[in-house]
C-alpha cells in the first residue's frame, strides 16, 4: 500500500548534458513508497534525462531531490546505492566481459548484508541466471541481460529502482516477463520509477504516470485514468488500440 508522504521527491529540476544547455526545464515529480510510477512522453521529451538526473549522471543546474527526506543532489552516482537507490540503464547495463556471477559479485560489493547471501538470494530468485552463472554477460540473450541487470540493481536491497526502458528491444513475451517481474518487485515494497516506450504495457502495471514533453511536465495522474484518457491515447499512446494493456 502506498504511503501518503512522498518517498522520492523531485522538484523543479533543470538538467542536461552540457552546462547552460538544459534538456529538463523545471520538472517536478514524486514517487510514493511501494509505488510503480511510469514516465511517458514522445521521443526527446527528456524522459531518460530525468532518470539519469536522479541517478546523478547528468548535470543538474537547478532544483532539489530528496529520498526519504534526505538530499540526493550532489551525491556521486557511486554513493547513491547507500541511500537505497538503484538504477538500471537502458543499454549497456551489464558487464559483457564478466560472467553472470562476477557481475552479481561486483554489484554485491555495495551491499550492507553479506555479499554471498545476497548473491545466493538473487540466484534463487532467478533460476535462469543460476543456470548461466559462469556464462559471460556478452553471451546472454536480451531478456536474460535485462534480468541480470535488474538482479544487479536488486542485490543492493534498494528502496527504489529506476529503470530506463527495460523492455526496449525485447520480444513481446520477454517484455511481458520483465514487466511482471517489475510488478513482483513492487509487491515486495520496493518503489519503481519506470521510463517506457511501451507505454500501454507499462501503464498496465503502474500506479501513477507522468507525461513529459519538451522537458516539462504535461500531465500526471493515476495510470488507469491516463490510459483511459482519449486525448492522451491519441497523442502519446499511438491511437486507440485494443487490449494491449
Amino acid at each position, binding site marked *: 500500500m502506498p504511503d501518503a508522504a512522498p518517498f522520492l521527491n523531485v522538484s523543479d529540476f533543470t538538467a542536461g*548534458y*552540457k*552546462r547552460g544547455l538544459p534538456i529538463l526545464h523545471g520538472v517536478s515529480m514524486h514517487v510514493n513508497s511501494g509505488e510503480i510510477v511510469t514516465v511517458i512522453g514522445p521521443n526527446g521529451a527528456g524522459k531518460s534525462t530525468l532518470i539519469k538526473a536522479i541517478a*546523478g*549522471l*547528468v*548535470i*543538474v543546474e537547478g532544483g532539489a531531490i530528496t529520498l526519504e527526506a534526505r538530499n540526493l*543532489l*550532489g*551525491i*556521486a*552516482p*557511486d*554513493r547513491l546505492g547507500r541511500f537505497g537507490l538503484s538504477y538500471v540503464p537502458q543499454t549497456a547495463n551489464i558487464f559483457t566481459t564478466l560472467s553472470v556471477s562476477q557481475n552479481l559479485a561486483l554489484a554485491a560489493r555495495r551491499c550492507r548484508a553479506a555479499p554471498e547471501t545476497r548473491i545466493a538470494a538473487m540466484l534463487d530468485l532467478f533460476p535462469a541466471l543460476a543456470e548461466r552463472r559462469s556464462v559471460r554477460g556478452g553471451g546472454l540473450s536480451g531478456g536474460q541481460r535485462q534480468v541480470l541487470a535488474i538482479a544487479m540493481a536488486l542485490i543492493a536491497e534498494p528502496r527504489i529502482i529506476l529503470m530506463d526502458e527495460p523492455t526496449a528491444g525485447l520480444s513481446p513475451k520477454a517484455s511481458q516477463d520483465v514487466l511482471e517481474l517489475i510488478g513482483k518487485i513492487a509487491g515486495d515494497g520496493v518503489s519503481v520509477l519506470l521510463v517506457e516506450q511501451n507505454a500501454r504495457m507499462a501503464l498496465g502495471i503502474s500506479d501513477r504516470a507522468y507525461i513529459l514533453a519538451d522537458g516539462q511536465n504535461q500531465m500526471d495522474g493515476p495510470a488507469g485514468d491516463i490510459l483511459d484518457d482519449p486525448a492522451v491515447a491519441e497523442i502519446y499512446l499511438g491511437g486507440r488500440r485494443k487490449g494491449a494493456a
Partner: protein
Amino acid sequence: MIGFVSYLVFFLTITAILAIAVLGLNLQWGNAGIFNGGVVAFFGTGAYIMIILGGPERGGEFGGFGLPWPLALAGGAAAAGLLAILVGLATTRLRHDYLAIATFGIAIAIEAFVRNATYLTGGAKGIRGFERPLEALIDNPFLYSLFFLALAVVLLIIVYAGLSRLVSSPYGRLLRAIREDETAARSLGKNPARVRLEAFVIGAVIMGLAGGLYATFYAFISPQDLAPILTFQIWAMLIVGGAGNNLGAMLGTFVVWGCWVASGYVLSSLAPQELQLYAGTLQYILIGLIIVVTLLIRPRGLLPERLQVTKRPGPQNTGVISNAGEQYQS
C-alpha cells in the same frame, strides 16, 4: 662586436628554420588536432634526402646526384610527405593517440636506419659537404651568413603566408571543425580520416622543408641531428607560443630556442666542472618542465588561438572518463 652580430645572425637563422618546422606542427596539432610524436623523422627525412639529391659524389656511396638546390630541397620535402602517407594511412582512422605512438616509433626507426644504412646515409658519421646555394658568388662568410638568414626568413614568410591563407580558408575551418567534433563533421558528409591525413602530410612536407634547409645551412647531416629531443623542443616551441596561432608559433620558437641557447651558455660558463657533464641533462629537464608547466598553467600559450569556433574538446565530449558526480556537485 662582429662576433656577437655573427652569433646573432646564426641564432636567428636557426630560429627561422625551426620556426618553419613549428609552423608545420601547428597545422597538424594546432589546427587539425593531430598528434605528431616524431617531428624529427620528417625533419630528418627532408634533411637527408635533400643532401643525397643535391650533394656531391661520395666515394662509392649512394647519392651525389648533384641536383640543383631548389629541386633537392623540394625532393626532401616530398620524401617527408611520402613518409607521412605511410604512417598516416595506418593511423588517421584509429584512436588519435595511435598516431602519436606510430610517429614516435617512426622517429626511432628512422634514426636507427640512418645510423646503420651506411651506403645510403653515411652511417654514424653522416653526410658532410654540400655546396650551399650561391656560396661561390658570395665569398665573404659573414655576408653569406646574412644572405642565408635572408633566405631562411623568406622561406619562413612564404610558409607563414601560405598557411595563414590555408587556415582562414574554408578548408581551414573544416580542419578545426574536425578537430572539435569529428562525428559532427562526418555527419556533414566530410571524411575526417581523409582530411586529417591531408593535414598530416602537408605538415610533414613543411617539416621536411625545414629539415632540408637545416642540412643546407650546416652542409652536414648526421644521426646526431635526429635525436628525439628535437621533437620535444619543437613541441615546446608550439605550446609556449600558442597552438593554433601561427604568429604564436613563431614567437614560441624564438622564446624556447632562446631559453635553450641561453641555458646552454649559462651552464657552460657558470656551472662547476663536475656538473658540466650534466648540462644536457639539466637542459632536457628544462624542456620537460616547459612542456608540463605550460600545459598546466597556460595551456593556450603566449598568443592563444583566436577562436571563431567552440572551445577545445573537454572531457565530456571526448569519451574520457568524466566523473559525473563531480559535475553534479559543481
